[in-house]
């Protein structure tokens, strides 16, 4: 039973990784940039949700939506200000800029409000224990999981059925050919940042409710792990990010269950090393031949 409970924890944690990993993978797919500031967008989303709940007295769903909208705008601003001028620069220049943006957001927030942590109130969501086949599962983790799954379904719908989603896929496959279709590549890239950042914002609120404590550097580790999840699933591939995130959460939970909880964080990076050695294209990646 202990094992099943750990698995439930793993899936909840994994769905948070998955939501963040989606932003990494979508942005990589379209501009071939690992946006290392993405974990900090997640952190900002968590704080927006916190203030929405405590100061503005909003309930869960409005706070979640407010955080998503704020992060979407924030993500677009980051892209327009920091990355767009580097569109034709080398990839390493953009990567270093991303790290710079990350540090700027973290320390900017510390400068504005201080480094002290905050605690999410614990009455945002009902805290019932559900007894399912002898396993006690908190209603919170079920709600969190449902919200994540709903968001991922909406994302799949947007990417596959809407015009902007088709434009995103076209630009990520061949941006020049996309231009010839009349697609505005800059707007499509902005939309990608907006959607990815909104998902990170949602993940931030969910994280806060689940783990209570938030602080300005909270985005670093989940951000890196979500990056691992994106690589595990195959960077640039949306279903890969979902599966990679869930899988990583489950792996971590299992490591804890086996009694090695101190190794939890290390395991994610061991997974990264093994993936890069044995399956660099990721679980869902195809070995694409380079055209000569």
């Amino acid at each position, binding site marked *: 039973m202990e094992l099943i409970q750990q698995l439930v924890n793993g899936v909840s944690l994994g769905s948070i990784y998955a939501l963040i990993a989606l932003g990494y993978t979508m942005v990589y797919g379209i501009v071939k940039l690992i946006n290392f500031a993405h974990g900090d967008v997640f952190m900002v989303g968590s704080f927006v949700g916190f203030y929405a709940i405590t100061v503005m007295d909003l309930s869960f769903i409005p706070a979640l939506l407010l955080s998503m909208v704020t992060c979407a705008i924030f993500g677009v601003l980051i892209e327009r200000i920091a990355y767009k001028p580097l569109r034709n620069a080398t990839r390493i220049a953009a990567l270093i800029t991303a790290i710079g943006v990350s540090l700027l957001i973290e320390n900017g927030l510390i400068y504005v409000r201080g480094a002290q942590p905050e605690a999410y109130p614990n009455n945002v969501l009902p805290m019932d224990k559900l007894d399912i086949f002898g396993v006690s599962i908190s209603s919170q983790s079920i709600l969190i999981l449902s919200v994540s799954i709903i968001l991922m379904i909406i994302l799949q719908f947007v990417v596959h059925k809407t015009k902007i989603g088709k434009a995103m896929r076209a630009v990520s496959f061949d941006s020049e050919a996309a231009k010839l279709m009349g*697609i505005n590549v800059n707007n499509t890239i902005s939309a990608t940042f907006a959607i990815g950042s909104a998902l990170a914002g949602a993940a931030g609120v969910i994280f806060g409710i689940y783990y209570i404590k938030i602080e300005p550097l909270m985005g670093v580790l989940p951000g890196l792990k979500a990056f691992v999840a994106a690589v595990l699933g195959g960077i640039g591939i949306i279903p890969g990010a979902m599966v990679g995130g869930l899988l990583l959460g489950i792996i971590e939970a299992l490591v804890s269950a086996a009694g090695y909880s101190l190794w939890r964080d290390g395991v994610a990076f061991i997974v990264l090393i093994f993936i890069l050695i044995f399956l660099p294209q990721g679980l869902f990646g195809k070995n694409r031949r380079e055209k000569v």
Partner: protein
Amino acid sequence: MLKIEDINVYYGNIQALKGVTMDINEGEIVTLIGANGAGKSTLLKTISGLLKPKQGIVLFEGEPIGGKAAQSIVKMGISHVPEGRRVFANMTVAENLELGAYLRKDKNGIKKDIGKVYELFPRLLERIKQQAGTLSGGEQQMLAMGRALMAKPRLLLLDEPSMGLAPLLVKQIFNIIEEISEEGTTILLVEQNANLALSIADRAYVVETGRIVLSGKSEELTASEEIKQAYLGGH
């Protein structure tokens, strides 16, 4: 319809087009012939807005388009079928065609035009749900052309439609190009197979190292000794 005056186009410091001047009249098929690297594709890319001319004027129906964003040029009625087809391999045939109509809002018109494309290329209808990457080279060429037609262009730019295709397929593609032309679309065709290009074109320009070195009616050029020697494999 299209008027290009003395344009210079650069890739970085390398000048790819040197003072090119040409024009295309409504309803014509005009072809650009010339060797690899002569600047034919560069010229098409400049017309469709992928490249910006450093100097010179590009006029489409009297309006300057040189340096405009590609999407506004598509909107004005110029579609470009790029070299190598560049279909969206990760999407289905139907999705590729929908993307061709990206800027259009008339749902019924789009539906009708998709039907027309399938009429023109029945092979695509058979493959409607297939990923474009799984199509053969000829089918991809058809898809790329169908996709471009979905934007309802008045001027269609075709870059090497015969590249890598079997002779029978090439013939088929060229018949369709003539059909498109007969329906009133003006065509600018870049082709390495000069014989074939001259056989369907009204006029031709010969491009060499970024310059137009010769131009005239197709029959005249076909008859010219110089052209025979250089481009038609004549003896």
